[in-house]
């Protein structure tokens, strides 16, 4: 197909990819801590602030770290671009791709 593609889509695709990537990273964090620390018998669990350590790292810190990560992703990787049809073709400042 011969298509004169809207230049903003390149950036949009990249941001969609970053969002998927951050979801995958969260999965590894969530899974790694939960089953890495939580698969042994309960009697040998260590506790942090009253929570089993697997829970503290996987669920509590996972939430804190990835809330921050979502901020960092938006701040450092996402670009502010016009969304309206008349914004078509304007390459945003500082956007190389």
């Amino acid at each position, binding site marked *: 197909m011969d298509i004169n593609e809207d230049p903003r889509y390149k950036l949009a695709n990249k941001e969609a990819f970053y*969002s998927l990537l951050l979801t995958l990273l969260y999965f590894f964090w*969530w899974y790694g801590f939960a089953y890495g620390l939580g698969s042994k018998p309960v009697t040998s669990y260590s506790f942090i602030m009253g929570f089993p350590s697997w829970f503290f790292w996987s669920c509590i810190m996972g939430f804190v770290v990835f809330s921050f990560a979502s901020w960092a*992703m938006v701040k450092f990787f996402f670009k502010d671009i016009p969304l309206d049809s008349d914004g078509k073709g304007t390459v945003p400042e500082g956007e190389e791709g």
Partner: protein
Amino acid sequence: MNFQVAIPIVLYLAIVFYIGYLANRSIAKTKASFLNEYFIGNRSMGGFVLAMTLVATYVSASSFIGGPGMAYKVGLGWVLLAMVQVPTAYLTLGFLGKKFAIVARKINAITINDFLRVRYENAAVVVIASVSLLIFFTAAIVAQFIGGARLFEAIGVPYKVGLFIFALTVVFYTAIGGFRAVVLTDAFQGIVMVCGTFALLFGIIRAGGGMEAISARIMAQDPALLTPFGAGGFVTKPFILSFWILVCLGVIGLPHTAVRCMGYKDSRSMHRAIVIGTFVTGFLMLGMHLAGALGRGALPGIEVVDSVIPTLTIKILPPIFAGIFLAGPMASIMSTVDSQLLLASAAIINDLYVGYINPDAAHNDSKVRRISFIVTALIGVIVFLVALNPPSLIVWINLFAFGGLEAVFFWPIVMGLYWKRATASGALASMIVGVVFFILLSQYSSILHGVHPIVPTFVVTFVAFVIGSYMSRPSVDAVKKVWE
């Protein structure tokens, strides 16, 4: 009925009515076309409202009543399961992202079905999408109405009276205020949910004498409650991993959350919403489910899953906080119902009536306005009557509503947006195969060994989509409209 509990709830209902009234006035003043204003709020959402409406629409009774009840029964393993949903805000907004917002503006789409109509140029795709949306949403709204009425029962209001107050409120503000009323009340309801969650979690930890004491008491009841596998090994790995598809990745395909991704003002709003939305989702999921799991250490012996949270609330919190808290789940239910109600109405008016039956009506604002108010209110009345005495068919359909919507909408939205070779035949194949396969498989889910039926459904619908697309000619015109 306890009046101290009732005060915050009455206040909450009054504020919601007032917001509906304000939104109605802004409809009267708008310069945009009525459909654009009523169904997508003239794409004016800022970051905070976008975040809150996305989260509030997505978070329903199951996160405030059913889920925490399960966490009480099964333990921290169920909280782990709930935390699968932390990425939903950044995944949905980031993945559909700017592309969806840009496309929606290019083709002037105000619903998901508008997008499907332009992208696939096929009436069957839109009709199947609209009809399945109507069926699944109606069942889901009935189920949420019943949940709302049960909450009123918890504070001593009879079921039918509770149902009437609940239905009247949500149908009234949705019908008169449209999208703007829905998202503004969602923002308010999101704040109520956050306050309610904080109050309950704090109350339970205090009533239980601190985290260490609660953990020790839970350990004494059943150590498995503290493991990621849950009491009796209930939370198996295939089961919990399935939820990554059902409530994380699949959420991209829910029409009522996806439509929010085309209603925001500018890219800055979307950036802000990703941050706020992620934080609020994580806070609500962690807070509510943890409250359920820890509730067992503070107040053991509650048998019925759905009455765990109301019972904990009434017994543990001081009455005025209990009222604030009960407003929380009520807000979670209303904020889901309002969006579904409006989209059901949009499916009838915008997607079917204006889209195919009478396209000229789009230019006749006063006519569309009258029909829209009536249709929205009428759907509400029908759902109310059904909820008075719910037939078992509705309860049965509701079991498939969440997964069924994903089975229908996920690939047509995602592939339509990112794959130029996607065609109407692919979308049709995927939608039809999706619904049939998902419902059939749900009947025989024992053969799956704990894997949720949505997982094989996603694989099968993907294959159907790709084969269907390659067996038909590329849709050049539609692709140009969306990509150029």
